[in-house]
């Protein structure tokens, strides 16, 4: 029975959130009255708080925990506002905020290089280029296609189902994991914890011991990247080159010629 209650409670939470997002999505100037948006944001907030109450609070220390909640809340709220905003420029800005808080979350997990790289590449270059295009393409006000979303109910339903699957499974597995092995349901575990022997074996299998405890984070990441994954690095470099050449070719084509052909 525990299984059912768990999944039901997470369904309720997720449906609340989905309803909130549905009410927040743009649906024309006539129907998007203030009340719907207020109710929507209220529902979404309640759902967020309920999800957060299921979070485990076993973080290394109180400061880290507070920072995590703050960053996660900023990230999720900005994501909601991003898909709900009428103006694409504002959407892009909310996405930039999502990126910033995500890079904070990376930093909290010790992935320093990633957090800096996310800011430099995503927030510093990609979003700025997108802002360029949005501003050039749409200089004044909201366009009709930004004021109406397509099938908001159906897409929210799809989202609810996906979120329920993901969050319900996570919640369930995490709850089960805390039980002793004998009381668990079959297969109800999310953590395939590698055994120490397995770790030692995988380290031995590598051409040289690449992780050095005395070196810093970036050093170790670089060693992993360029010793273990060097082929992938080359391939990604090639891909970037191809993408740049392709982008230049696509944009430089004369649209008049294309239509004629």
């Amino acid at each position, binding site marked *: 029975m525990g299984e059912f209650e768990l999944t039901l409670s997470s369904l309720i939470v997720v449906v609340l959130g989905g309803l909130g997002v549905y009410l927040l999505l743009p649906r024309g100037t006539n129907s998007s009255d203030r009340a719907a948006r207020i109710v929507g944001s209220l529902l979404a907030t309640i759902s967020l708080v309920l999800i957060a109450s299921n979070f485990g609070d076993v973080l290394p220390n109180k400061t880290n925990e507070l920072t995590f909640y703050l960053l996660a809340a900023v990230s999720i709220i900005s994501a909601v506002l991003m898909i709900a905003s009428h103006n694409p420029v504002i959407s892009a800005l909310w996405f930039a905020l999502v990126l910033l808080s995500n890079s904070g979350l990376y930093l909290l997990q010790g992935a320093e290089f990633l957090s800096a790289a*996310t800011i430099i590449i995503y927030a510093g*270059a990609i979003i700025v280029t997108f802002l360029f295009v949005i501003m050039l393409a749409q200089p004044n006000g909201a366009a009709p296609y930004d004021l109406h979303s397509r*099938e908001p109910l159906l897409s929210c339903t799809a989202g609810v189902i996906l979120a329920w699957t993901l969050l319900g499974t996570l919640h369930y597995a995490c709850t089960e994991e805390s039980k002793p092995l004998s009381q668990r349901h079959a297969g109800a575990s999310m953590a395939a914890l590698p055994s120490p022997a397995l770790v030692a074996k995988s380290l031995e299998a590598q051409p040289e011991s690449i992780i050095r405890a005395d070196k810093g984070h970036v050093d170790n990441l670089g060693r992993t990247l360029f010793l273990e994954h060097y082929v992938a690095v080359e391939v990604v470099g090639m891909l970037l080159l191809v993408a740049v050449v392709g982008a230049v070719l696509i944009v430089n084509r004369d*649209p008049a010629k294309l239509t004629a052909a």
Partner: protein
Amino acid sequence: MGNLPLLNNYLSVGAILFTLGLIGFLSRRNLIVMFLCAELMLQGVSLTLVGFSTFHGSWGGQVFTIFSLALAGAEAAVALALIVVLFRRNETLDISLWQDLREADQPPVLDEFEADQLEPETVYPELTRSGVLPGQGGLPPHHNHRTIDEAIEEQRHEPVEVPHA
């Protein structure tokens, strides 16, 4: 090795971001916003990968995320180029105008438009342009109500003989 509730937290945030990106991708109609939603999904996945990487104490997840960053850069370049080309053709970013790309046997998606009561555009007062119309030696005195556009329009109907310089 990691802390399971901690991993659960990060996975939940990643899952929520992914779902929100999905909802946005399905429901928004602006090409660029749809692209941003796809990037949002990518962010959710990246968060998940980094969470697993920390949990397992391995660098694999982070390395994978670095690759996905590079891929996002490539993707953004190409997608932006495509969006610019599409925008040049139709002067709009509406995805619904590209329905002729659908499969032959699929019916078109009809987007219901309610009649929007858009705010009237701000009307700025029309000022008389200053300056001298070329070839005419200036506007007649006290002719304040005729703008240069109107003058040009008049000129088009009754050609003025321009004296040789």
